[in-house]
């Protein structure tokens, strides 16, 4: 029947320095792998939507035309699945958590105008190309049709 068996440890604690961190007076230290929050280098994003589809929470949304990538940080479980899945590796898991707030606002990242412009141009070009291709195809079709008609005539 021992009493106060913990006295030694308690007294030792009493005379040692507390282990308490100084947070928030001093910033918190994070490990390298710490899953804090998701960052995006938006200009690299190709808007494929892989991340939005794989996210277990449905936290993400993208708008390919506007070039935006939207995240609700109050909904993200920091699982990192999107990071793993992103084909362009433009998503990264960054240490440091998202700060608390009174509102659950979503954050939207928009591509820089140049990139947008470039993309728009590209899209235009693609569209043009597609149109051209279409035209060409139509022309080809028409030509073929004409050819066929001609053959018929024959």
């Amino acid at each position, binding site marked *: 029947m*021992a009493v106060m068996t913990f006295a030694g440890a308690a007294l030792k604690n009493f005379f040692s320095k507390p282990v308490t961190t100084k947070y928030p007076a001093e910033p918190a230290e994070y*490990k390298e792998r710490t*899953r804090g929050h998701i960052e995006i280098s938006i200009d690299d994003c190709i808007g494929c939507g892989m991340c939005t589809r794989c996210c277990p929470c449905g936290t993400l949304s993208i708008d390919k035309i506007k070039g935006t990538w939207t995240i609700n940080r109050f909904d993200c479980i920091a699982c990192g699945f999107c990071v793993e899945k992103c084909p362009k590796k433009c998503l990264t898991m960054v240490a440091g958590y998202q700060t608390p707030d009174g509102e659950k606002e979503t954050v939207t990242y928009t591509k820089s105008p140049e990139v947008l412009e470039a993309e728009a141009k590209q899209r235009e070009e693609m569209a043009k190309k597609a149109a051209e291709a279409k035209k060409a195809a139509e022309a080809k079709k028409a030509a073929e049709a004409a050819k066929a008609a001609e053959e018929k005539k024959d």
Partner: protein
Amino acid sequence: MGKRSVIPYGPQHPVLPEPIHLDLVLEDEKIVDVLPSIGFIHRGLEKLTEKRDFNQMVYVTERVCGICSFGHGYGYCDTVEHIMNIEVPDRAKFLRTIWFELSRLHSHLLWAGLMADAFGFENLFYQCWRVREKVLDVIELTTGGRVIFSVNKVGGVLKDITPDMQKAILEMLDYVEKETKVLEKTFMNDYTVESRMKGVGVLTKEQAHALGCAGPFARASGIATDMRMRGYAAYGELDMEPIISNDGDCYGRCEVRIGEIYQSIDLIRQALDKLPEGELAAVVKGNPDGEYFMRIEQPRGEADYYIRGNGTPNLDRMRVRTPTFANLAGLCAVLKGADYADVGILAVTIDPCISCTER
């Protein structure tokens, strides 16, 4: 009937932060009847399989519970791997084992703290949780998360444990071993602590078997069952014996868990020692089709997984039978005849996880 009190315990109660509710009938402070009520935390996450594919489900399963989160992720992946006949690389098996034991370590230390808290030993609670923080540090170092690891995927693991990290783990193990000795002294020998645990909530071996108890709760009653003996992951290649006690009371349960802390430390050391080189994950192709029953040993005891695939990415059924669900009957049995003051302690001795019980 006049001398009886009919009172609720929970759902909100500081001793057991999780919401479980018991209808108690007391005579003085003796419990003469108890009826459990659950559902305060029931989410219905098993049904998410209809909306999430089997890869996403890993992250959902991890959140069956935040304490043995790793185990759930693992159990799920292993079951799917069985169905899909995936051969997981050896290194991944060992890494999984190490993380599994780390999570057991933190879980048991957490339990010890909650137990100390339940019998009103503040300082001991702080001590346990302080030691536990060291384990969490290592977990964060290796996985990036403190409680939710998110390192499992179907087919293997996502992250490696580098040699630096291995060193950190070993250092941490030494520290924890040393500190556990201090804790053990108080948990096992202190008069006040003993007065709260010895002879409280006794469950004999026969009773434990008849009530279908699992995990340390059953082992403390002398049932030598430990799913790790089934040799899943890398356990087959490590040396271990189930730890049992024959007391069947709270003291015995405490003894078993403290023994398991040492056991986990030993297992991690062994696993690190034998850690093979190799790939982290196998390639996964196709969708699961078929069914499998898997049993693993969570810190709280045997957890059963049942998965039924139907050839689409969305599983037909994902089922987790968690240790606490199995131990509910045992809890009610030990509560009858105990003191009201023991409710918290007894609830904690089964190391309850209501979150996973109700899913």
